[in-house]
């Protein structure tokens, strides 16, 4: 198993309703999430805004610390591990972020952005490895000299992918990575990710609000709603016969590019 998640709970302080004295009340974002993710699987995580899907992703990468429950990564309990203890493992689980404009340091060149993590984990020949990563995501090597704002949206997202795969991780979490892209680059990025997952034998977590995109890529889908899993199905089963009402609602709300679809 790549991931085993058990009864995961996580809350944030609610500063809006904080009283003048005393601790702020807490908002529960994840309310007991549990699932297993086998090695090599591609898991889709779907939900609307406020469903907790991004929070779940960030907890799995231990960018957030859960209140309770358990996260096992490849058998290791990482639920409450300190940052220092995690450091050695961090190479193995990587993330691609939603907004490449925000996730690529605007004042560093692409080459440095990809090579930085490599250097940190003691890889040698980092410049060559960064160039290889650019090859793998289909960007010309000369892009290493560019700044992020000199690239198009699709190209930036490729840099984000290159940074993640350069470390040769076991698991990658992709958080809404195509929601900011045009359809033409969307298709390219999705196809690229699909190829890389196969080629490198990665386990992938794919967070999205868009079931159309999820269907392309994933074997299995978790549907999140208000911090709970309302459906956990194989992809085909979910689209053929959605179990949860919320899943059906999501499916019905997607406007297909087809004027004959009865929709309103």
């Amino acid at each position: 198993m790549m991931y085993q998640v058990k009864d995961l709970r996580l809350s944030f302080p609610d500063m809006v309703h904080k009283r003048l004295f005393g601790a702020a009340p807490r908002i529960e974002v994840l309310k007991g999430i549990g699932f297993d993710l086998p090695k090599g699987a591609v898991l889709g995580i779907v939900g609307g805004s406020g469903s907790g899907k991004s929070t779940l992703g960030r907890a799995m990468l231990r960018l957030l610390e859960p209140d309770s429950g358990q996260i096992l990564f490849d058998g290791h309990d990482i639920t409450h591990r300190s940052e220092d203890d995690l450091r050695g493992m961090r190479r193995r689980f990587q993330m691609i972020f939603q907004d490449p404009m925000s996730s690529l340091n605007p004042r560093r060149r692409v080459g440095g952005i990809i090579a930085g993590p490599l250097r940190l984990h003691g890889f040698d020949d980092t410049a060559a490895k960064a160039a290889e990563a650019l090859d793998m995501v289909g960007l010309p090597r000369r892009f290493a000299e560019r700044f992020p704002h000199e690239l198009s949206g699709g190209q930036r997202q490729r840099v984000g992918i290159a940074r993640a795969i350069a470390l040769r991780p076991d698991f990658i979490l992709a958080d809404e990575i195509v929601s900011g892209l045009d359809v033409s680059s969307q298709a390219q990025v999705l196809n690229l990710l699909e190829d890389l997952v196969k080629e490198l034998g990665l386990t992938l977590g794919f967070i999205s609000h868009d079931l159309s995109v999820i269907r392309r890529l994933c074997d299995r889908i978790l549907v999140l709603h208000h911090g709970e899993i309302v459906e956990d199905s194989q992809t085909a089963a979910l689209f053929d016969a959605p179990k949860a009402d919320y899943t059906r609602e999501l499916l019905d709300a997607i406007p297909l590019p087809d004027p004959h679809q009865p929709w309103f």
Partner: protein
Amino acid sequence: MKPYLSIRNLCVTLKHGAPILRSVSLDVSAGQVHGLVGESGAGKSMIGKAVLGTLPRALHIRSGEIWLDGVDLLTLPLQERRKRIGATAALIPQDPLTALNPSRRIGPQITKRLVDILGWHKNAAEDRALDLLAEVHIPDPARVMRSYPHELSGGMRQRILIASAFAAEPKLIIADEPTTALDVTVQKQILRLIADMQARHGTALLFVTHDLGVVSKVCDTLSVLYAGKVVEDARMQRFFMRPVHPYSAALLAATPTYTNPTGSLKPVPATVIEDVETEVQQHDMRAGL
């Protein structure tokens, strides 16, 4: 039937000449919804902005005509143009978060235009606002009128902006990606609401979006833009059955759909991009740019 909004050969450029819109022409008739489709940077939002006179300072209209209700706006003096636009057209903006002033209550934000520009009495304007809020299915309109924007959800705010757009009974509404910032379930409600309101009020609607799925649900006709040039103009049914321009076809093929499990997504092929680039360049050469 004579179109209510008719744009003829509109050219918009950056101050030093780089083209943003390349002789765009399109028509929207009363009671019709016209979609403007294109990818980011295609200039689709700029068309709406040119009509409403809200182009960014760096851009200017080089040539062309914008006929609104039988008058070419671009021949009018600025003051008169503003007045005319204010009285006949309205905008549903993209981002309901920033379109409302966070430090003012909802009520005055809806009635302001009626009172200031159209000279309504304050009470009449408030009654109108209450009616409209009810019409866009907002529960307890009186309470919402007294609320501040941050107390309402994104969907609610977008409803308020729709109500506010219809407040002065405009003949033309420009909706600029009105559902992009919303969840898919909320998007459906908002689209239905916009379609209902448009049909009931018989408004001409120019609907700017990047989403072909959305277009197929709300539009009667559409224009596909690439790099500020209209590459295809079509009736909606025909477009989705037989897109004529290769770029339109490629765009349609690249749009993901959940009903197609096995077929892989086809990115827009490089040859199609090359061809449409050449087309744009040829246009620029003819236009002497």
